[in-house]
């Protein structure tokens, strides 16, 4: 790891250690915006970490920004950091200005579509977007759709658009946004914007899951070494050791898949590498969380222990921006379309 990356992650760790205690996670789940944490995050420039420097970025490389995002997930920070990064990059790619503050993106569900309508007073937006992450608290949403058969990126105010709010399993808000002839703050064409939103979103969730899984493994190792039963720490039992070895394997695979996807996506999200990552890490999330809880016994099933902050995120994020079946099927069809003999060249390219 580069020294700069190391320093960056230390800063991120310090910030979340200070601003993301249990009390803040709990109040955020109750619906309170963690303003101090967001402000601290803006002060170190994390909100703009994934932006190119020309678009107001903080001068970090994309892989450094992803390392910071992963760390925020390790800390289970209840903030729309991934969404703000993604929204900002879509705007920047379309040549639009990136506004201050937390941002979200829409649509994020496969069957949702937003309609861009040209009128005399300018282009307006209509339609319903379900489960928009943090859509009720972000002042702006970056919206993507088609206009005259071409992909466009727009910036819309969410004022008055949030109709109802659900929560994902981690208690993060997922809002239904209804746009009725809403005026767009800005609009520009961006080729492939719809697939970019989907693929880059899946990349970010993959990176986040790798971070949450790393934390779940750490909690499990710590608990197994501390918890004494039958006169010894449960870590001394072979059954537990083997479970934790499997969990470590899932975490290591998730980490490797996330790294590979980030590396392949430095310029633009790489569909093959992201499909691999979201598929593999989604599977690791489920299998890893299961073991982590089994090791923790009843303690991990309580609100008191911190494990659930990581595992509830894993159980949420694996289904957002396409679950394993979605990405695996795409991957499978991409492979069969090219034929069996094309598989190895495809794999060895990475």
């Amino acid at each position, binding site marked *: 790891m580069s020294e700069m990356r190391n320093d960056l992650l230390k800063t991120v760790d310090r910030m979340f250690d200070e601003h993301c205690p249990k009390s803040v996670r709990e109040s955020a789940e109750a619906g309170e915006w963690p303003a101090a944490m967001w402000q601290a995050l803006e002060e170190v420039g994390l909100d703009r970490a994934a932006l190119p420097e020309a678009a107001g970025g903080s001068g970090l490389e994309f892989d450094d920004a992803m390392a910071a995002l992963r760390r925020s997930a390790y800390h289970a920070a209840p903030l729309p950091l991934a969404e703000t990064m993604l929204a900002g990059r879509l705007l920047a790619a379309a040549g639009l200005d990136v506004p201050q503050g937390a941002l979200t993106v829409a649509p994020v569900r496969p069957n949702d579509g937003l309609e861009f309508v040209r009128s005399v007073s300018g282009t307006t937006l209509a339609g319903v977007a379900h489960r928009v992450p943090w859509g009720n608290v972000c002042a702006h949403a970056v919206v993507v759709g088609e206009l005259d058969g071409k992909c466009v990126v727009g910036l819309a105010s969410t004022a008055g658009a949030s109709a109802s709010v659900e929560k994902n399993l981690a208690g993060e808000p997922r809002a239904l946004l209804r746009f009725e002839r809403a005026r767009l703050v800005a609009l520009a064409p961006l080729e492939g914007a719809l697939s970019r939103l989907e693929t880059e979103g899946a990349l970010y969730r993959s990176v986040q899951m790798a971070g949450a899984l790393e934390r779940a493994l750490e909690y499990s190792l710590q608990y197994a070494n501390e918890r004494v039963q039958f006169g010894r720490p449960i870590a001394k039992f072979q059954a537990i050791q083997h479970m934790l070895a499997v969990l470590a394997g899932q975490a290591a695979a998730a980490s490797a898949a996330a790294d590979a996807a980030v590396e392949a996506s430095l310029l633009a999200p790489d569909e093959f590498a992201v499909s691999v990552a979201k598929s593999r890490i989604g599977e690791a999330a489920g299998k890893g969380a299961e073991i982590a809880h089994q090791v923790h016994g009843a303690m991990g099933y309580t609100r008191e222990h911190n494990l659930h902050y990581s595992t509830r995120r894993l159980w949420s994020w694996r289904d957002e921006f396409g679950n394993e079946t979605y990405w*695996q099927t795409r991957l499978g069809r991409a492979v069969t379309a090219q034929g069996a003999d094309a598989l190895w060249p495809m*794999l060895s390219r990475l």
Partner: protein
Amino acid sequence: MHEFKFEPVQMPAAAEALRVEVRAFIAEEVAKGTFTPSRNSWSSFDADFSRKCGERGYIGMRWPKQYGGHERSALERYVVTEEMLAGGAPVGAHWVADRQSGHQILRYGSEKAKQTILPRIAAGVCYFSIGMSEPDSGSDLAAARTRASRVEGGWKITGTKVWTSSAHRTNYLIALARTSPKAEDRHAGMTQFIVDLSQPGVSVRPIYNLYGGHDFNEVVFDEFFAADDMVLGEVGMGWKLVTGELAFERSGPDRFLSTYQLLVESIRTIGSDPDARAANEIGRFVAHLATLRRMSTSVAGMLERGAQPIVEAALVKDIGTAFEREIPETFRQLIPTEPTLGEGASYPELLGMTILRAPGFTIRGGTREILRGMIARGLGLR
């Protein structure tokens, strides 16, 4: 706690050039009818093919030129290895010698052993078996009872090795033997020896496997004489040597590509328009494979830097072999056929042989349970 870090590696340009070259070589050999890819894995023994590999410089790639090697990097070797496996090349004859035995000799062997054996391995004409397991010593390798006693000019070895793959057609094996009685430290007092299987005092008897194939053997030493220059490393240091050897045995792409040919033939059989379930399963395997490959190349990078990635190798082997075993189990449900006993290239035979070979994947080279114990130790649990 040991931190598992699978750092990325950048394949050097030389490795990518080599990839193109190896791919062309394999395609040429397939076109000539030398072998049928789908029928092969790294346990397919073909001395003619090994000789061709030797001629082309694909064996002993990392060794010094003075011993017949090619002074290439670990990553270049990795690329050749994975291309051979993916291409279904019959590399079994030289596999063990190239993967681990040669390295042991290079690092710990006498000058004479290096000069007489390594160039022949690199030429693809000299093959090795592994002499670790015994009738009462499998996973518990330190329980080995094969004994070596000091005699004039060398050692007399007596004892029995089992599951010795290909000993009926290889030239040598490296035997782990006890050179002093068991002490409190049960890992002390062991030594590795190079055993020339053509010499008197050693007999090889087949142990047929579950489908009737002859790969395994029982190798009996009856006062077999090993000269001093056939000792590896210092006398009594065998445990350290053998664990280092296992890192090489466990870390490569052979630990997740054993059933790659079945994956390819299954995709071919399913065709270009898979149903939803088949597409999903194929995609899942591809996701696993791409990730395993990433982790395995990372281990090759660690070897290149001179590290001893023993725990990482165990981890890659554990998840890699679990993956290999899933492939026949999944495709038997997707492609309605009845697996057939036979060595032919038809799909039912390929499926059948893979099912029959699969139990070995999570046993050979260290059982899944032994590997998980090592990973647990790495995690600070034992």
